């Protein structure tokens, strides 16, 4: 992960994360950005649960292009508030979207058109604060958002970059296709015979994927279907500690800055309480051809 972030997420990059919404959020990748003190990032995503809040608090972020930034089970994002209200630790530019409009912004980039029209956001003041949203002829034209890199965490992938994700996908597909490059972290690094046995489940063309990182638990505390439940207590604890700037800084040191890597982080988590133990395998599809 360290190499992937070092190489493909430079200062100033536009980075899409949390594109499956509440599940599969690439926290491990985000924490690596904080450890490497990335600066002036633009974060793109619909709902990032607490990941965007953490990176904003860590001072990595110049702009957020998102529909919602906070803590899904707990409410407000305290670092987000401090940045917007008091420029702490630094000023933050916000490009407000709705969930639908951020998806359309990514589809516009995917299809390489300047904008896509929609009927949502008519009558909303979001049109007043986001210059990428233009109302004309009874429609809202959503300007394309093209991430330099989209980072996803998935259940399994092979070393060639073929990623299998399942469960709700949010805007994962358009975020990957719209991006210049994609970084994949996965619970299981599998043989190509596994991914190619089901090409319909492959999220993106391998031509977009520049790095595959085997990072078990890389989405904690967000859920991973078949692997981990959501760690509600961890989110609650983060919400409480991040209420004050000092509390957040202590939290960041304990869980990110003073942690060398994800394996060490996971060793400090009570994984038994969140690990999924009841398996529900899907019924196979027959790709026979002869």
């Amino acid at each position, binding site marked *: 992960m360290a190499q992937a972030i070092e190489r493909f997420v430079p200062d100033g990059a536009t980075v899409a994360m949390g594109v499956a919404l509440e599940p599969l959020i690439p926290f491990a990748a985000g924490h690596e950005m904080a450890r490497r003190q990335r600066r002036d990032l633009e974060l793109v995503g619909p709902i990032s649960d607490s990941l965007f809040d953490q990176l904003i608090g860590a001072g990595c972020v110049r702009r957020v292009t998102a*529909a919602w930034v906070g803590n899904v089970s707990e409410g407000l994002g305290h670092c987000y508030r401090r940045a917007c209200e008091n420029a702490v630790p630094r000023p933050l530019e916000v490009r407000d979207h709705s969930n639908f409009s951020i998806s359309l912004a990514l589809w516009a980039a995917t299809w390489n058109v300047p904008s896509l029209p929609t009927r949502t956001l008519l009558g909303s003041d979001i049109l007043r604060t986001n210059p990428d949203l233009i109302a004309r002829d009874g429609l809202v034209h959503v300007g394309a958002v093209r991430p330099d890199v989209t980072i996803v965490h998935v259940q399994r992938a092979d070393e060639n970059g073929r990623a299998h994700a399942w469960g709700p996908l949010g805007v994962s597909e358009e975020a990957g296709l719209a991006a210049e490059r994609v970084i994949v972290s996965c619970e299981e690094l599998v043989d190509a015979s596994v991914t190619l046995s089901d090409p319909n489940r492959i999220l993106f063309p391998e031509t977009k994927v520049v790095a595959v990182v085997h990072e078990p638990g890389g989405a904690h505390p967000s859920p991973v279907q078949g692997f981990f439940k959501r760690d509600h207590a961890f989110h609650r604890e983060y919400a409480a500690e991040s209420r004050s700037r000092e509390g957040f800084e202590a939290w960041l040191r304990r869980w990110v800055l003073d942690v060398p890597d994800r394996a060490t982080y996971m060793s400090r988590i009570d994984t038994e309480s969140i690990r999924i133990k009841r398996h529900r395998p899907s019924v196979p599809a027959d790709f026979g051809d002869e």
Partner: protein
Amino acid sequence: MTSAASPASSYSPQELMVAVASREIRDGDLVFVGMRLPILAYAVARNAHAPNARGLFEVGLMRDQPAAAFLGTMGDPPNVVGALWATRMSNAMALMAQGHVDLGFIGGAEVDRFGNLNTSYVGDPARPKVKLPGSGGGADIAILSRRWVTMVSHERRRLVERVSFITSPGHGDGTPGWRRRTGLLGGGPVAIITTLGVMRFPEDGGEAYLASVHPGHSVEGVRNQTGWDLKVAGDVSETSAPTDAELAAIRHFDPQGFWTRD
């Protein structure tokens, strides 16, 4: 917290709100289910008067049966097991843009007399007094669903004369037909369910009025906690308390009271 005669039917304000919200769901409705209390309201309705309702979740899921286990978010693994469709958010939004979503739920930090919601900025957006999380899918639901309901804690600072920022439009400036003129597809808000009572809107939009007051509260008490001169229905009634069946369902889906106990 309200306390009624029998301990069996004592309940929290949130439990009452969930019960009231569940009654807004009609059998056969496709419901765009938001987070927190609406997830419980859907579960209650599905197990009671709306056995043919379906739930649509912006994360990219459609369900019939409520999830078997507690949900901290709509993307939690139990919400995927038994799902009728696991897809992309834009496909769920597409169904709503086609008018297929009968009812939506939206959480509101600030609500005004015309049912407009602010979940973005308190004060000047350029330098806000409070930065709220934002729209999420709220604006989409407010604009595209056929009708919607919001649930909010009843405080003067939350029920305001006019919101300073319209994240999710209700009936706009309150003039009849504002939504149609503005090009909004859906019908807008039909109810504001609070910790003290239920407010509703005239057929063609306009201004909210007090339709019922929760047990243990008074019309005057509600008006005092409202940030504008709240109109009161001629036939204002007392909100019917949650039935034992409703409470049993709520407590089945939120055993620890994560959403329904303070």
